C-alpha cells in the first residue's frame, strides 16, 4: 500500500513535469485591452471577474456564502465554551490604538474595493483585509465585546442581502448587457462586504466554541 502510494504520487508528479516542459516557452497572449475597456475597467482581471466571467464569480460568491452558513450551522450544534475563554488585559493604549488602526484598515479596504477595476485590488482582497482588521480588533478588545458591538443577526442579513444584490447585478450585467464603472464598483463593494462579514463569522464562531484566538 505504502509503496503503491509512493510510486503513484511520483508517477503523477513525473507526468505533470513532463507535460509542463512542453508548456514552456509560452506564446503571446490574446488581445486584452479592448475587452477590458469595453467593461469600463483598466484592470483586465477585474473585467474578467466582474464582467465576462461574472457567471463563475456568482457561483464562487455562493460557495463562500454557503460555506459560512455551514460554519454557523455546524457550530450551532456544539456547546459554547464560555469558561475557557482567555481574559484580555485591558490597557487603554491598546484599545485606543486598535480603534485608530481599524479606521485605517476600513479606509484602506474601502479604497481597494472602490478602485479595484482601475488597478490592483478588488472586492476579495478588500474583504480579506477588513476581516483581518476585525481579527486585530478582536485581539485587542476580546472577541466577546466585539461581538456585542457587531450585532450578528443584522450582519447575517447584510451578508445574504449582499449576495442577493450580487445575483441581481449579475443578471443586469450578463443578461441585459449593462456596462460601465458603476456596476463594477458596486460589485466590488458588495463582494468586499460579503467576504469581510464571512471572515468575521468564521473567526467569531471558532473563538466562541474553541476558546482561543
Amino acid at each position, binding site marked *: 500500500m505504502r509503496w503503491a502510494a509512493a510510486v503513484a504520487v511520483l508517477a503523477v508528479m513525473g507526468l505533470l513535469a513532463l507535460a509542463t516542459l512542453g508548456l*514552456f516557452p509560452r506564446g503571446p497572449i490574446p488581445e*486584452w485591452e479592448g475587452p477590458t475597456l469595453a467593461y469600463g475597467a483598466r484592470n483586465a*482581471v477585474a473585467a474578467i471577474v466582474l464582467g465576462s466571467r461574472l457567471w463563475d464569480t456568482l457561483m464562487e460568491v455562493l460557495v463562500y456564502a*454557503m460555506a459560512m452558513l455551514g460554519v454557523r450551522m*455546524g457550530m450551532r450544534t456544539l456547546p459554547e465554551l464560555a469558561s475557557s475563554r482567555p481574559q484580555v488585559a485591558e490597557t487603554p493604549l491598546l484599545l485606543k490604538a486598535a480603534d485608530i488602526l481599524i479606521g485605517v484598515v476600513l479606509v484602506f479596504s474601502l479604497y481597494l474595493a472602490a478602485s479595484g477595476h482601475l488597478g490592483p485590488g478588488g472586492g476579495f482582497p478588500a474583504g480579506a483585509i477588513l476581516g483581518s482588521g476585525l481579527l486585530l480588533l478582536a485581539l485587542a478588545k476580546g472577541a466577546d465585546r466585539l461581538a456585542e458591538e457587531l450585532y450578528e443577526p443584522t450582519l447575517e442579513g447584510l451578508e445574504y442581502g449582499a449576495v442577493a444584490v450580487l445575483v441581481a447585478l449579475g443578471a443586469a450585467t450578463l443578461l441585459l448587457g449593462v456596462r460601465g464603472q458603476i456596476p463594477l464598483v458596486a460589485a466590488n463593494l458588495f463582494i468586499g462586504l460579503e467576504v469581510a462579514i464571512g471572515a468575521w463569522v468564521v473567526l467569531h464562531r471558532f473563538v466562541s466554541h474553541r476558546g482561543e484566538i
Partner: protein
Amino acid sequence: MEGLTAALMAIALAGLGLWTLIRRRNAIWKLLGLNVASGGSILFLVAVAHRPEARPPILGMGPGPAADPLPQALVLTAIVIHFATLALSLVYVIFLTERRHTQDVPRLERPRRRR
C-alpha cells in the same frame, strides 16, 4: 525560466500535499496536506499566466508585454473556493472531535455496530 521553475515547484507542492494526505491518519493533517496540494494547483495556474519580463495586465502600467489575465482571474476564484471548503471541513473536524473524541481517520470510519 521563472515560469518553468514556478510550475515545477507547484508540482512538487502538490505531490507533497497528496503524500501527506495519503500517509497521515489524523484528519487535521489530511486537511493540511489537502491545503498544500491546492496551493500547488493555484501556483501552477499562476505559472501558466506568467510571461518573461511581463507587466501586470492593467492598462497604463508601462510598456512591454502583459501577463495573461485569464488564469489570474481563475486563480482568484479557486483561492476563494479552497478557503471556503477548508473552513467548512475544519468545522466538521471540530464537530467530529466533540462527538467521537478522536481525529483518527481509521477510527472515525469504523463500521456501524450491528444491533
